[in-house]
């Protein structure tokens, strides 16, 4: 719920602050004197407070929708990732290639945060297989080597 503690809380606080300033400007209670019509200014203040509350609720509502949309898109990202991972392990060359192409696209997606990118990194490294051990291999060897997946 990072968005609640960040941008959206600030937006609601700004709305409340603006409302307070506007209310004081309209109401100016410091000028109020006994006998003055209190009802008129109180009604205006109530209307402003009501409008501000509505705006705050709308901001929170929009925030919720944005968050929901992002969650849905990330869930879809995961669904596609699982599919691509399965395809990349297919016994058919054409399907494997589609799988890897989709994995590559998903790796560049903005929906992939550090966690998702880290997972792709770890899983892809395991796909490479023995090649990853080259960095620790002895320089002596038998020349041409074939590393199957």
């Amino acid at each position, binding site marked *: 719920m990072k968005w609640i503690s960040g941008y959206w809380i600030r937006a609601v606080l700004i709305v409340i602050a603006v409302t307070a300033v506007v209310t004081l400007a309209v109401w100016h209670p410091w000028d109020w004197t006994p006998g003055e019509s209190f009802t008129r200014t109180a009604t205006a203040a109530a209307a402003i407070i009501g409008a501000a509350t509505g705006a705050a609720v709308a901001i929170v509502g929009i925030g919720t929708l944005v968050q929901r949309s992002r969650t849905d898109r990330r869930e879809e990202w995961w669904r596609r990732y699982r599919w691509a991972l399965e395809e*990349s392990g297919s*016994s*058919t*060359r054409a399907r*494997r*290639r589609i799988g*890897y192409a989709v*994995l*590559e696209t998903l*790796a*560049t997606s903005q929906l*992939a945060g*550090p966690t998702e*990118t*880290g997972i*792709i*990194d770890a899983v*892809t*490294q395991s*796909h*490479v*297989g023995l*090649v*990853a051990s*080259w*960095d620790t291999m002895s*320089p002596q*060897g038998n*020349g*041409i*080597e*074939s*590393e*199957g*997946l």
Partner: protein
Amino acid sequence: MEYYMITYHGREYEVSWEQVKCAQILMITRKRLKKQPTEWMKVLAAVDLENDPPSRFVRDEVFQAA
């Protein structure tokens, strides 16, 4: 399965299309994670899968009866 020849630390290795593709994906993830790719990742990712001719092609398609 297509294989490509690469030279790593003076030795020749034969790597598959998939391994090269994995290395290219790893270059993307390393960049995003702000982590340095390892040397073998760079060497493998440098293979141009579109234009470099494969050194060997092994038919590995699985045909199943309809």
